[in-house]
């Protein structure tokens, strides 16, 4: 991987010259037989894959009206062409959202529209050949389902939904992606993406409690499987495992401690992430979400709070009720579910936390909106809460805050380059290039304002930037969580 080179950091996001096939050789590993069958798909490419794929497409079209509409209504206006970070980073024209959609749309036309059936050549309809399938596998795994293009599409066509459908079709014929499918399998058997068994989780939390005690002299607890706790915290398992994620987990614990909220983690639902979304597969998404329901019932909690994880919040905020509801047994005075940022922001506004923002004076902070939070969910009770609430927290716990170029924040935010099931090493070249727009915007505020901390509320963003920043010669410590800053600033101990 030593030959991976990051684009030069100029502070500008230039639209590249088109370079046919520039990223045609970047593809993820294919899932092996055991991984596929474990999560309900054929072990390998089935003999009659072409017929089955078309049948599956028909099935999805009948189930998801949106998919049919998105495939029908594109007028090829070109608004989306320079909006995808993977196009901007690679120059490969198939990474223009309209071209990515066309990979599926051309096949849809061939088998599902009169023009495509009778005069395919006239309407740009294509047979589903082996080459087309290979192209699908490459380019539908160069979409992080971030939905930025849909913001600029006058019709609101959501490429994420098209790429999810394409992945679902491929899985259904036995051609799946190893990274996402392996992780989904681990959640089904062990309860989390990383595959951390109960005992290891308990041991890890104990270590974190000891460390918190050593550094603060306060008994900050990270309770596991406590029956009768008020709050069940469901957080990405990277929060247990990795830097900088773990700093945020300690931050949540300190907030609950200081606010006197009784809370617990669950070893059964030890994962907020839900990669069922990335592969567009409802059954797997539901099965993963059901673990949260089961844990909530078993532990008898009253509230569910979700940790810093972008797509987990999308699944939780938008779909949890249909995937795993009804939630009538929870306390109806609180949103179901609630984001940990909503909890902390509310406590800050009520004056329930004592904060010392000078504890973060070594940082000039900016905020990177994570795509699934920014464009596929909300927070709080006002429009735009998903933008204002995390920023509100950051400003309360740090004195120096700077915004990046507004063309790259809020609902126009750029993906970190590793979302949507692409956070795997064989795609590192793509990930480095796809991070380019965000890195340019960051570079600008690093130069103009001395920004040295980019806060995010997503485990994928944190892992992705930790990995790719060194390629841009930016220290990996520049990325961190919002609750990592909270952890630094919160004053523990008796209230005045």
């Amino acid at each position, binding site marked *: *991987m*030593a030959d991976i080179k990051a684009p030069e950091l100029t502070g500008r996001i230039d639209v590249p010259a088109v370079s046919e096939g520039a990223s045609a050789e970047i593809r993820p*590993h294919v899932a092996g037989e055991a991984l596929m069958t474990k999560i309900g798909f054929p072990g390998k490419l089935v003999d009659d894959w072409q017929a089955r794929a078309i049948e599956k497409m028909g099935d999805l079209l009948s189930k998801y009206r949106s998919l049919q509409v998105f495939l029908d209504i594109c007028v090829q206006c070109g608004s989306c062409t320079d909006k995808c970070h993977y196009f901007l980073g690679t120059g490969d024209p198939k990474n223009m959202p309209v071209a990515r959609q066309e990979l599926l749309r051309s096949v849809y036309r061939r088998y599902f529209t009169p023009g495509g059936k009778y005069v395919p050549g006239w309407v740009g309809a294509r047979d589903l050949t082996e080459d087309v399938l290979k192209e699908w596998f490459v380019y539908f795994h160069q979409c992080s389902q971030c939905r930025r293009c849909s913001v600029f599409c006058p019709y609101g066509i959501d490429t994420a939904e098209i790429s999810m459908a394409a992945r679902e079709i491929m899985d259904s014929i036995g051609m799946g992606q*190893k*990274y996402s499918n*392996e*992780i989904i399998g*681990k959640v089904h058997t062990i309860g*989390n*993406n*990383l*595959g*951390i*068994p109960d*005992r*290891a989780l308990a*041991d*890890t939390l104990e*270590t*974190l409690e*000891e*460390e918190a005690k050593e550094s603060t002299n306060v008994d900050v607890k990270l309770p596991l499987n406590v029956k009768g706790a008020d709050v069940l915290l469901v957080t*990405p*398992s*990277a929060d*247990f*495992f*990795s*830097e900088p*994620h*773990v700093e945020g987990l300690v931050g949540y614990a300190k907030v609950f401690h200081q606010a006197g909220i009784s809370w617990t983690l669950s070893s059964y639902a030890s994962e907020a*992430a839900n990669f069922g979304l990335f592969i567009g597969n409802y059954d797997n998404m539901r099965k993963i979400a059901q673990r949260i329901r089961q844990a909530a019932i078993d532990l008898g909690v009253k509230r569910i709070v979700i940790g810093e*994880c972008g797509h987990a919040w999308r699944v939780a905020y938008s779909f949890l009720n249909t995937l795993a509801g009804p939630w009538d047994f929870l306390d109806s005075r609180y949103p179901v579910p609630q984001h940990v940022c909503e909890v902390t922001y509310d406590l800050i506004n009520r004056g329930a936390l004592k904060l010392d923002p000078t504890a973060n004076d070594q940082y000039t902070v900016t905020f990177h909106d994570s795509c699934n939070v920014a464009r596929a969910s909300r927070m709080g009770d006002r429009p735009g809460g998903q933008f204002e609430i995390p920023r509100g927290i950051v400003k309360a716990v740090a004195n120096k805050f700077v915004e990046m170029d507004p063309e790259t924040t809020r609902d126009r935010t750029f993906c970190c380059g590793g979302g949507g099931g692409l*956070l*795997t*090493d*064989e795609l590192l070249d793509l990930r480095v290039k796809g991070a380019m727009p965000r890195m340019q915007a960051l570079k600008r505020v690093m130069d103009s304002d001395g920004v040295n901390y980019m806060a995010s509320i997503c*485990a*994928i963003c*944190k*892992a992705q930037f930790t*990995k790719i920043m060194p390629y841009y010669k930016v220290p990996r410590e520049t990325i961190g969580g919002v609750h990592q800053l909270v952890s630094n600033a919160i004053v523990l101990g008796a209230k005045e």
Partner: protein
Amino acid sequence: MEAVMAGQNVEVDEEGYLLQLDQWTPEMAEELARQEGIAMTPEHWEIVNILREYYQEYQIAPAIRVLTKAVAKALGPEKGSNKYLYELFPLGPGKQACKIAGLPKPTGCV
């Protein structure tokens, strides 16, 4: 898939991680490290040994804080940091050190 490592037939994944923990030998660690561009020193071995011991006990590589704490305890507080681990394993202690130690690659949002 099959591969030959340190003169023995072993099963590895696409990126060369051993698939069977018990096929690992110290000689393979040396060879895996070479592939990663790392020359094994006693300091590298200390980390590899801690990883293997933890895995035998818990069936997962240790979380970063558990690892830094164990390293601090065994080798002194100045070595119990993420920075020290990155100095030894520049592409990440989790992934690179696990590979050399013959453990499965930690995957998830890491």
